[in-house]
């Protein structure tokens, strides 16, 4: 209990300070709630509205989860292939880096033209935004295996697959988890932006509706639900990482 208190007192105090400052500014400047509501007003506005928002939360969550899952499977697969086959890596890696630096979101209108006005372009955007961080991270993870360990596997006459299975996968795991975490935000951004453009449900859709109606409290409520989803998701990955990577070799966050 005492440890818990020590660990969380600083961030809790800072959080309370921020909320208080926010409230203070609203009160002092006398801002109306349709410009900037106080945090308390936002929380209270959930009253009677939450149930109606849950289907939207579910829609956005499913889109992001789809994008995250497919994006990570593709990212890890391509990452492993690129790390394992040098020629492939040399030929493609510069383009991967180039693409990653582009705002993928800008391709959304193109995807809508190709895939139609439905959920497909949203899923595609969420997938692409999730795939890149994991792709880049897993290339690094698979390719950064220690030279001496590779010489050891060679001296034991291990096949390429055995070296991959016994060594490289484990070496890449911390990097892959780092990619998993980064792509939570990626897939949620992809889903929300996709919804701005084509959806008739989802938290991104609600944000657009709120924007049109200047419903600032609704806008904040949608943001809070997105934040809660991201935090839970992130926490779950961190938990899995701690359970799975027991050898104390957590990769540095690369972004």
């Amino acid at each position, binding site marked *: 209990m005492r440890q818990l208190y020590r660990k969380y007192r600083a961030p809790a105090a800072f959080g309370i300070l921020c909320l208080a400052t926010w409230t203070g500014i609203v009160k002092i400047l006398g801002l109306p709630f349709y410009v900037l509501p106080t945090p308390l007003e936002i929380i209270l506005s959930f009253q009677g509205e939450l149930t109606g928002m849950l289907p939207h939360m579910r829609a956005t969550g499913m889109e992001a989860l789809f994008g995250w899952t497919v994006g990570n499977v593709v990212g890890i697969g391509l990452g492993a292939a690129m790390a394992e086959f040098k020629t492939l890596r040399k030929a493609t890696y510069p383009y991967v880096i180039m693409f990653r630096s582009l705002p993928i979101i800008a391709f959304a209108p193109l995807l809508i033209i190709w895939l139609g006005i439905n959920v497909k372009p949203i899923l595609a955007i969420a997938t692409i935004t999730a795939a890149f961080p994991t792709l880049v991270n897993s290339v690094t993870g698979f390719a950064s295996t*220690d030279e*001496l*360990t590779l*010489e*050891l*596997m*060679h*001296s*034991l*006459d*291990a096949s390429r697959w*055995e070296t991959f299975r*016994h*060594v490289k996968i*484990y070496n890449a795991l911390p990097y892959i988890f780092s990619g998993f975490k980064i792509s939570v935000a990626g897939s949620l951004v992809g889903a929300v932006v996709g919804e701005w453009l084509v959806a008739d449900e989802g938290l991104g859709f609600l944000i657009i509706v709120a924007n049109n109606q200047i419903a600032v409290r609704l806008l904040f409520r949608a943001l809070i639900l997105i934040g809660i989803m991201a935090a839970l998701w992130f926490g779950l990955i961190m938990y899995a990482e701690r359970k799975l*990577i*027991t*050898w*104390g*070799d957590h990769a540095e966050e690369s972004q």
Partner: protein
Amino acid sequence: MISIENVGKIYAPDSPEPVQALHDINLTVDENEFVSLIGPSGCGKTTLLKCIGDILSPTAGQITINGSSPEVSRKDNRIAFFFQEDVLLPWRSVMENVLLPLEIQNRSIDQDNHERAQEVINTVGLQGFEDHQPAELSGGMRERVALARGWVYNPDIFLMDEPFSALDELTRREMNRELLRIHAEIQKTTVFVTHHIPEAVWLSDKVVVLSPRPGEIHDILEIDLPRPRDKDTRLTEKFREYDEKLTDMVMNMT
């Protein structure tokens, strides 16, 4: 027996500045003999060891191990190579690390493999630590795991590339004593690279001094100290003479 005839190694032979790492090396290591390679940095001792172990290929000459090429010997699991670091896989327990070579060679692990691994772990003095992770062990204990891993598949020869260089002096002594004991017990032909002269004298039947640029054999010194050797061996006049003679040799080279 290892026989090395006219072996040379040139790095980057096609580049404008090829590096002659080894030149005309001739050396024989007899059955069960313990031979150390010493010399200043850049003398090619690690290169020579890696050529014997088929991690590198020589560009001239020939190496045979009990009549076979290094490649055939490596593929037949006749060689155990020990590296400058312990190179344990941190995600595997002590037991799992020791089982790794058997897992690769047999494609699967059975009861016999477990018994064999346990026997080797006991011999290096790690009974009770089978389920520990490498991160929980001291440097000396990790090195013992590496020894067990190399020995578990019963190779004909040990190739050791400064295996104790990452250890502090006291732990190095302890591992030297351990290696003397294990070598006396299991009798493996061993080639041992080190820059630590007392270590070379204590362990070896023969010390090969290499000189740098290009790596050539400068001298070979037979170490005529009776076995079994122990810490008293280090106090003898003869030990000191060998130590000084080799130190002079290496120092005068640079």
